[in-house]
Structure formats: structure tokens, C-alpha cells
């Protein structure tokens, strides 16, 4: 019991280590791929983050100061910095406009002009209204004098709440003039999508969100619930990747951002709060696992319970009746089945079936390799058990085949049990092969496509689920083994000092 509890406690750190190693490998595999997912910008932004630790996470303040410096200097990176500044939009204004006067006259002119597209987006002016660099400087100075007080959290909160309650041109205009400064509040107000009222609220907010991000399109008031939910999820993914570019990090949020503003942190947050993450096709990993996992689970369970159960029984009988027909036939048959590649076996079995018979044939194809392998192990273990003293005593007392089999059932099932946990990954590989041969839409087909797409979220989630299942199966099989064989439990409790 103590050993089992220890194993369960170790499972957490083991899984964490698995995700870290898998993440490193998958990110390395991804870096070579050209294809990006649906949210190209978000994904590109994500790839620029450090892997596990971000000692100096960027926020809107640091980004604004950096880009303003680059634009003012007019160096080789000025064009890129101008684009970044325009992307930061209204959120950058409280950090840029008060410091405009501190810049050199040339730098001030460049920054003021670089900010003009933001003014157009905010609907503050047409291009013809502002002439030249001096006009731009004057415009921003006046803007900050007049509207600086609007760039406060309380004002934004009120504006977003009003826009969420009722759609009107003036309320939309109010939010438009705040530009990306309203993004954190807008994203928080999106909330969950369960009812038609939620869709209506999201439709009203999406009108203000859409001009700020291509990942957050306008949602119609009469959009189906599923569509609205999907669009909100897509918008949230974008926000999860780029959100800190629009907020100020200070105190605890800055410390948390050292971990959360990394590639691993983003994945972890997405996995923890977003149904194990989102596939590159835009669907929830949890939904896909639920939809496709059933058929794979059926196959793996069939291979494990059917194959190992029947194999244990067959091996036991073959071991006891070694010189009888059963014993003589079992060995060559088991070797022939075990030696036939699973791909050939499944195509041979599944290929002869049509329609619904495919599932049954696939189950048979899953059961056979397990049956063949376990019956061999079982037979060998039974034979070893029959060499022990208790077996000799049973023979001396004239025990028959069934008596011997019954007497050793408990000891000899340890072979199947010992392999229960460790063979699970092998069974998963076989199930992928069988699914492909039988044309079953299970985890196999989607995983193979995910490998092609370098779908990090799916592969990480699948690895995590498989690891958890294997870990639990190993603990279970060890606990069952210890329960069946008192010698093992005694050895586990006696284990302590090193080799003496």
C-alpha cells in the first residue's frame, strides 16, 4: 500500500518531466516546419518566446519604449518598430504620448507620424486633416491634453460594460476611440457561450474587437451557438499568445509572467484552461479525444483484456499439457501469429470484411497478437512454476491437468499482469495499424495527420493522456502483482539498503 501511494505521488513529477521532454522534442521538430497553424501571427509570436523561462517578459510599457526609441533613431529596424507600434495601438499611447516632449525634434516627428495610422483606426481624423510632421506632433499633443483622462481602467470598464449591454453607434464609437487599450476588458467580458443571450452579447462586443484583431471576426447575432463558441475560442487563442503586449506587468503579474510568458507556459495555460489545448485545425483537443478516442479505447481494451486474458488461459493450459495436442499446437501457432507483422495480420483479417464487420475484424486483429505473445510468456512461466517444490508435491499426490492449472493460475497470471502497464504503448501502436487497415476514424488517423501538421497541442495532449494511462496501468499492475504474489510485496517492503 505504502509502495502504491509512493508511486501515485511520483506520477505527478513523472508526468511533468514527460511534458517537458516531449515539449523540447516537439518544439525542435516544429522549428524545421514551414507550415503554421490557423493563427499565423499568434503562432509566430509564440515561437519567438523562450522555451521555459522568460527573465524579462515584455509588456506594453517595455515594448512601447523600445519601439519608440527605434523609430526615433530611424535605424535599420525602424520600419519593423513602426509596425509593432501600430499593432500596440491605443494601449501604447499612455506610455508614448507623455514622453514625446523628451524626444529630439526629429525623433518626435518620426514617432508622431508613425502613430498616425492609429489615429485613423480610432476614427479621430482623416488623412487630409493632418499635414506633415508638425501637424502630427500638434495633433497628438492636443489629443493627449483632451483625452488623456479617458485612458484609465475605470473609464474602459464602464465603456465595455455599456457596449456589452446594448449595441449603439455611440457606444461602439466610444470603444473605437480607446482602440487596443480596451482589449483586456473586452476579452474578459466575452465570458462563456451557453445561451442565445451570450451570443447576442458576444456579437455586440465582436463589433468592437474585429477591427483590432483578424483572429476575432464579427459574430452575427443569430450565429449558431457552436459557431459563436468556436470564434470566441479562436479569439482567446490569439489573446493567450499576444495578450501581454497590451497590458502592463507589475508586481506578482510580472513574476508570474516569467513562467507564463514562455512557450511551455502558454501551452500549459492553454491545456489547463482550454480543454487540453486547441489543434491546428481549430478544434478543442478534449473534444477530438472524446470523439475519436472511443474506437481506439475499444481496440486497446480488446487487445489488453481479450488478448491478454485469453493468452494467459491458453498459455496456462499449454504449459500444463505440454505433451498433449493443445500444448503441441499452441506453441507453433502462437509463434506464427506473434511473428506475423501486425500490419499484415490486420490487413489479412480486416480486408476480408465489409461494412460493420470491420470493427469486429479489427477487434480480432487486436486480440491475436496479444494472445500469441502472452500465451508464450504464460506457457514459459507455467513451466517454471511446475519445476517448483509445490508442483512436485502436487504431482506426487497425483494431481491432474486441471488441478495443476487451478493450483498455478494465481502464480502464472503474473506474466500477463506484469506486461499490462508496460505493453500499453505497444498496443497503442498496434491499434493505429489496425485502425488504418480497417479505415476506422480513431486516434490513429488524426495523430498521423497531426504529425504531418506538427500539431504540438494534439501531440502533447496525446502524449500526456498516454503517459497518464500507462503510469496508472503500471501502478495497478504492480499492485495486483503484489497482491497475487506475497513474495513480491515482501521484497518491496524489504527494499532499502544498497547492494551489500
Amino acid at each position: 500500500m505504502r509502495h502504491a501511494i509512493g508511486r501515485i505521488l511520483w506520477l505527478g513529477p513523472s508526468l511533468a518531466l514527460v511534458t517537458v521532454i516531449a515539449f523540447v522534442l516537439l518544439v525542435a521538430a516544429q522549428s524545421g516546419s514551414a507550415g503554421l497553424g490557423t493563427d499565423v501571427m499568434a503562432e509566430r509570436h509564440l515561437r519567438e518566446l523562450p522555451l521555459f523561462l522568460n527573465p524579462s517578459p515584455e509588456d506594453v510599457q517595455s515594448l512601447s519604449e523600445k519601439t519608440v526609441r527605434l523609430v526615433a533613431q530611424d535605424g535599420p529596424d525602424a520600419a519593423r518598430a513602426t509596425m509593432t507600434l501600430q499593432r500596440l495601438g491605443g494601449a501604447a499611447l499612455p506610455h508614448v504620448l507623455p514622453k514625446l516632449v523628451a524626444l529630439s525634434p526629429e525623433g518626435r516627428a518620426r514617432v508622431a507620424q508613425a502613430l498616425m495610422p492609429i489615429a485613423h483606426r480610432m476614427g479621430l481624423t482623416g488623412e487630409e486633416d493632418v499635414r506633415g510632421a508638425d501637424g502630427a506632433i500638434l495633433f497628438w499633443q492636443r489629443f493627449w491634453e483632451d483625452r488623456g483622462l479617458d485612458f484609465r481602467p475605470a473609464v474602459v470598464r464602464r465603456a465595455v460594460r455599456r457596449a456589452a449591454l446594448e449595441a449603439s453607434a455611440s457606444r461602439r464609437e466610444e470603444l473605437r476611440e480607446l482602440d487596443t487599450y480596451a482589449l483586456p476588458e473586452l476579452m474578459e467580458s466575452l465570458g462563456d457561450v451557453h445561451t442565445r443571450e451570450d451570443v447576442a452579447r458576444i456579437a455586440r462586443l465582436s463589433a468592437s474587437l474585429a477591427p483590432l484583431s483578424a483572429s476575432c471576426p464579427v459574430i452575427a447575432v443569430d450565429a449558431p451557438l457552436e459557431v459563436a463558441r468556436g470564434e470566441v475560442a479562436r479569439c482567446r487563442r490569439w489573446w493567450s499568445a499576444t495578450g501581454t503586449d497590451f497590458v502592463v506587468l507589475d508586481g506578482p503579474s510580472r513574476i508570474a509572467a516569467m513562467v507564463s510568458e514562455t512557450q511551455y507556459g502558454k501551452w500549459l495555460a492553454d491545456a489547463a484552461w482550454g480543454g487540453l489545448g486547441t489543434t491546428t485545425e481549430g478544434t478543442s483537443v478534449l473534444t477530438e479525444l472524446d470523439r475519436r478516442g472511443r474506437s481506439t479505447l475499444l481496440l486497446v481494451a480488446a487487445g489488453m483484456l481479450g488478448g491478454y486474458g485469453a493468452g494467459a488461459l491458453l498459455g496456462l493450459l499449454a504449459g500444463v499439457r505440454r505433451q498433449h495436442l493443445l500444448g503441441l499446437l499452441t506453441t507453433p501457432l502462437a509463434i506464427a501469429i506473434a511473428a506475423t507483422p501486425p500490419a499484415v495480420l490486420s490487413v489479412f483479417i480486416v480486408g476480408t470484411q465489409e461494412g460493420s464487420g470491420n470493427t469486429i475484424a479489427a477487434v480480432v486483429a487486436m486480440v491475436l497478437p496479444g494472445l500469441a505473445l502472452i500465451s508464450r510468456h504464460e506457457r514459459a512461466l507455467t513451466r517454471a512454476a511446475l519445476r517448483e517444490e509445490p508442483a512436485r508435491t502436487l504431482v506426487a499426490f497425483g494431481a491432474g491437468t486441471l488441478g495443476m492449472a487451478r493450483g498455478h493460475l494465481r502464480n502464472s497470471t503474473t506474466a500477463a499482469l506484469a506486461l499490462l502497464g508496460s505493453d500499453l504503448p505497444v498496443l497503442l501502436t498496434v491499434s493505429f495499424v489496425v485502425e488504418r487497415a480497417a479505415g476506422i476514424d480513431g486516434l490513429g488517423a488524426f495523430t498521423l495527420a497531426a504529425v504531418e501538421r506538427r500539431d504540438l497541442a494534439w501531440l502533447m495532449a496525446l502524449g500526456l493522456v498516454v503517459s497518464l494511462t500507462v503510469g496508472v496501468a503500471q501502478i495497478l499492475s504492480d499492485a495486483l502483482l503484489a497482491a497475487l504474489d506475497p513474495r513480491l510485496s515482501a521484497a518491496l517492503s524489504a527494499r532499502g539498503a544498497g547492494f551489500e
Partner: protein
Amino acid sequence: MSAARPLPSNRARTRRTSGFARRALARPAARLALALLTVWIVAAAIGPRLATLQRDGASSSLGLVLLGARDSAVIVGIVLALALPGGFAVGVLAGAGGRGRDTLLARGLEVASFWPTVLLVPILTSTLSLPRPLLLGLAVALGESLRTARMVRGEVQRQRFAPYVVAARALGASRIDVFRAHVVPHATTPILVAAAFAGATTIATDTAISFLGLAGGAPTSWGGALASSLAGGPPAIGPLVAAVATTAAFYVLAGALADAIDPRPFLGPR
């Protein structure tokens, strides 16, 4: 006082080894398996040269068998070269160490065993730019080294408290001597079984990975030929027979070696 060293003499050791080989090859099936594996190794060595001498070259059934023998032998060789020493070292370290080291290594083994080959192969393919046999060998070797390590660890832990080990220690033999004379020979035998299983697993994995289209296609491997045949290509009876025969030979040999480890007579009902 000089320490007693109950070490077996060289002659005794040779006698024990030849006795083990005799027991393992006592059955005709085991001898046939060994002969088949010898043919496979010879085919791997000279097969590609013979294949080019054929009229249809590598495209004929025999040509595919001969070329595939080389491919599978290279992969199996890589697996054995990596998995056996690695698994043995980890198994011995875990089995002979204290609770802390054992727990750490055992949990490490667990972590490494979590990922199935079907996910590992494409990830390694994308991460490392290595030739296909080496990639496949690496992926299979990981799983096989874990199996070997588990077997060796169990055996070492069993031997640690065996009466003759305790007796040797009581007679003053050093830990290293006891380890070399008693524990290592016992822990080495499961490696032979693990090696035979590794050979069988490697060939089956090669076919599965080729069938799923992962790790790139290799027209010269038995798995690649079978996969292309299953996908509607020309029939690959030769590679199929060769793959099944070689895998079966590995299984038979593994069984014979496992039986030879325990020399006690079978006493069940006949």
C-alpha cells in the same frame, strides 16, 4: 587476514557456458532457429551484392529479400548495440543501488517508457537528420533498453540477498568481487533473452512504421516492401516469408534461452 574469494575457475566458467549453450540448443526448433538467423546474417552480409547480380536486380522477390536482410540486420544491430549495454548498465545501477538511486532510475525508466514508438519515430525524424535505419534503431532501442533494464534490475535485486551472495560476503569477499562473480553472470543471462525479443520487436516495428508511412519510405526494407504491397503495390511474398521466418526464429531462440536459464527438470503431467 586475507579475504576469501569464492570465485569460479576459468574452466568451471567455460563448462557452465557450454552447458548453457547445450541446453539452449537441445531442441531441434532452437537449432533450426539458430540456422535461420545465421542464414539471415550471411544474407545481410553478401545479399546486396547477390541482388545486383540477379537479372531483375533489386526489384525481384529474391532481390527484395536479400536487400531487406541487410536493412533489417542493420536496424537490429543498432538496437542491440544501443539497448543491451545501456539497459544492462541502468538495470545494474538501479538494482544494486540504495532505495534513492533505485527509485530515481526506476521512475526515469517509467518516464522514458511512456511514449509509444509510433509517436517517437516521427518526432525523432523531424528533430534529428539521421538515416532511416539509425532513427528507427534509436526509437526501438529506447523501448528495448527499458525492457532489458527492467529484467536486469529484477535479476540483480533477486541476487542481492541470495544465500551464496550472503555467504560470499560473510567469507570476506569484497563487494566488487561478489558482484563480478555472482551477480553479473546471473544478470547477463536475461540479456540474451532480451536480445532475442529485441530482434523480433524491431522487425515488427519496422513493418508497422512503414505501413503507417512514418520515418520515410525505404523500398529496400522488408517493412517497406510489405507496406507498399499492402497499399496495393506488387505482392511481397518473399519479404513477408523472410520477415515472419526471422521474427519466428528470434522468438523460438528467446524461448529456448529462457528455458536454458532454468536447468531444473519439468515435472508437470505429461
